[in-house]
């Protein structure tokens, strides 16, 4: 039933396959498509923001719409674009890098995706139902509590649902890395991308619960009359800020560490050298994660926590520059003396170093608590976090996608178009954000709808908008590249970049069971070990035998759908009355019923038989 992939299938069958899939490679594609869609949406919002700020005293869009735009731009880009796109890479690559046939919890993996998607859709339904959230992506109380309409309700419930998905995805990755490594793949032989997936997943595990609680408190305040953030009744808004940033700061590292992992792979492959200082890279990754948990209050220096608290958090923050510096130097030294190939992926990696370093330096500036009173809530901060998040995470995602595209889709993206994308994006990015440092220092506050004439902010803002257009053009070229590659591209060789790690030892296309026989790993960069010391092929660690595979399931979709429906019920409980209660009932019934089915029905998976595998092998 599922062994042989049939040549041509009907459109409906393909859709059904993706709706029910538990294969990590297909889930990766789902994450990529959904995350890519939200990336375009967030980009569109950014373009509208930049258009509004192109000229002084502009009346292009209204103030309320502007508030909704910047709120949704931040929320979408962080939760619905950057995270899922990284999850796409993790899902597609990590199991292959450790020589696993699948992830530890294929069902949970699928559930994580559908929860994320329905959470994201819920959030974006707000555009059509009376207005999007408008309290900033940080949703600080009391503004987020008193904000009229249902915008912030969509924020709280949408992120809650997608947050559950992320947490599940994180646990799945941790367990996969612990239990499913191929023979010989010790921890200190794992590629850096796997390591960073591991560490980022641990951060997800401990950071997301704080957000879960924060969002619950916000929901309770808004929808059920609780008083957590209502000072009149004894509430305290600072609790929200703490909970949000206890989650929010590790979140930054959840985003950047996998990007670091991508760059480590790219540098090493395209310098034809093993990664310089591998063990110090691992150590630095873990250290960044550890320190990353103790710095959240540097977002709150101006709250008035007192000089002692501010100093502690300032010093802890600056300490993170040390392991990050270790990484920067290791990457530079990886390139040093290597035979460097400037492919598109490598361009992203090389340009990431100065860009991210700039963001890191402004980070240390912002970490100085006293100076932060000056920078706080100005465009300087906006410039800083775009330097680290675009210059780090987005470059990482774009570079990683270019690098692993042949593995995910069996075809290589056009390098020429890729370089056009890179140069336009790189130039556009610096045009947009470099000038914003100075706009901030000149006193331009963030999140303001307008700036006025004659304050010296016109030129800077105009430059910034021009840069944004360059990034938009770059994105369109990337889309065009993806489309023509998909339509016209030729099948790529299995190992197009002369790779070093295990994922490149697989045939193209990757079989759905990944490894016919689990490979024996004999060192760091296992494929390279075989290329230099063996015959270039992985040595099997086991005889050919039956392979156990998980069954597809539609339940992840229905569990998530139920929560999506119930969320509307909770939101419109007061205004709609009975129909809302019906929605709650039906939604929860679908979710809990699906969970019950999952728990009652045995799901033992199936086996691919040895004979079938041998037959397939003959054609290879």
């Amino acid at each position, binding site marked *: 039933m599922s062994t042989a992939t049939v040549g041509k299938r009907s459109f409906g069958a393909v859709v059904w396959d993706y709706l029910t899939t538990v294969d990590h490679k297909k889930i990766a594609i789902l994450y990529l498509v959904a995350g890519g869609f939200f990336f375009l949406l967030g980009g569109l919002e950014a373009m509208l923001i930049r258009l509004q700020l192109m000229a002084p005293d502009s009346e292009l869009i209204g103030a309320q719409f502007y508030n909704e735009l910047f709120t949704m731009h931040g929320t979408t880009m962080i939760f619905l674009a950057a995270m899922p796109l990284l999850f796409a890479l993790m899902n597609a690559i990590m199991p292959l890098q450790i020589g696993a046939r699948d992830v530890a919890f294929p069902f949970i993996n699928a559930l994580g995706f559908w929860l994320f998607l329905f959470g994201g859709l819920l959030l974006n339904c707000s555009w059509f139902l009376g207005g999007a959230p408008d309290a900033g992506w940080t949703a600080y109380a009391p503004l987020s509590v008193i904000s009229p309409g249902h915008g912030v309700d969509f924020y709280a419930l949408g992120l809650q649902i997608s947050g559950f998905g992320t947490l599940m995805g994180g646990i799945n990755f941790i367990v996969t890395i*612990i239990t499913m490594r191929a023979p010989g793949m010790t921890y200190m032989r794992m590629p850096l991308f796997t390591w960073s997936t591991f560490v980022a997943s*641990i951060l997800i*595990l*401990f950071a997301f619960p*704080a957000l879960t609680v924060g969002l619950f408190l916000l929901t309770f305040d808004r929808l059920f009359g609780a008083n957590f953030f209502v000072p009149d009744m004894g509430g*305290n808004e*600072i*609790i929200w800020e*703490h909970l949000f940033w*206890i989650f929010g700061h590790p979140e930054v590292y959840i985003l950047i560490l996998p990007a670091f992992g991508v760059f480590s792979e790219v540098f090493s492959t395209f310098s034809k050298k093993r990664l310089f200082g591998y063990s110090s890279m691992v150590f630095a990754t873990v250290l960044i994660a550890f320190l990353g*948990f*103790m710095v959240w*209050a540097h977002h709150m220096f101006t*709250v*008035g*926590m*007192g000089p002692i*608290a501010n100093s502690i958090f300032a010093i802890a923050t600056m300490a993170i520059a040390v392991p990050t510096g270790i990484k920067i130097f290791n990457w530079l030294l990886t390139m040093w003396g290597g035979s460097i190939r400037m492919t598109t992926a490598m361009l992203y990696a090389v340009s990431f170093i100065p860009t991210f370093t700039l963001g890191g330096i402004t980070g240390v500036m912002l970490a100085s608590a006293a100076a932060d009173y000056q920078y706080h809530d100005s465009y300087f901060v906006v410039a800083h976090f775009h330097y680290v998040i675009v210059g780090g995470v987005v470059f990482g995602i774009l570079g990683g996608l270019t690098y692993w595209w042949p593995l995910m889709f069996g075809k290589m993206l056009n390098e020429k178009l890729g370089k056009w994308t890179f140069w336009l994006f790189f130039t556009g990015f610096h045009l947009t954000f470099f000038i914003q440092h100075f706009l901030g220092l000149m006193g331009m506050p963030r999140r303001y709808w307008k700036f006025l004439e004659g304050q010296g902010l016109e030129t800077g803002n105009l430059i910034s908008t021009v840069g944004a257009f360059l990034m938009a053009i770059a994105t369109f070229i990337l889309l065009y590249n993806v489309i023509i590659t998909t339509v016209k591209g030729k099948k790529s060789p299995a190992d197009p970049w002369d790779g070093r790690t295990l994922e490149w030892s697989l045939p193209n296309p990757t079989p759905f069971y990944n490894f016919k026989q689990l490979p024996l790993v004999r060192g760091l960069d296992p494929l390279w070990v075989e290329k230099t010391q063996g015959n270039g092929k992985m040595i099997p660690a086991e005889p050919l035998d039956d392979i156990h595979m998980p069954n597809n399931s539609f339940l992840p979709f229905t569990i998530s759908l139920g929560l999506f429906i119930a969320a509307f019920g909770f939101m419109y409980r007061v205004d709609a009355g009975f129909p809302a209660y019906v929605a709650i009932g039906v939604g929860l019934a679908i979710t809990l019923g699906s969970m019950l089915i999952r728990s009652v029905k045995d799901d033992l998976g199936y086996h691919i038989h040895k004979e079938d595998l041998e037959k397939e092998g003959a054609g290879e």
Partner: protein
Amino acid sequence: MAKDTNSNHADQYYKAKKKEEMKHQVITFALMIVFTIIAFGLVIGEFDKLFVFPVLLVLAAVQVGFQFYYFMHMSHKGHEFPALMIYSGIFAAILTILALTTITWV
């Protein structure tokens, strides 16, 4: 034949080990009850707050340790990662509680 005796020996070994463990668990349970009674007694006895609070917290921490190590077998082999994650969770938990109790009201 020889194999059977071996597995019998192994079975008996595991059985004995489990019995031993059960004994520990019952003792643990008795201690937990005692600790609980002490904790309630301290509060009913209206001792000084400065004395009662630390003792209560220590008693709670010990009880939780008992739960983790004896009832949930965290001391057994194969629990290295669970222990690591629980301690990391406790670390994050302490930071969270510390912040919310000290630098929230300003």
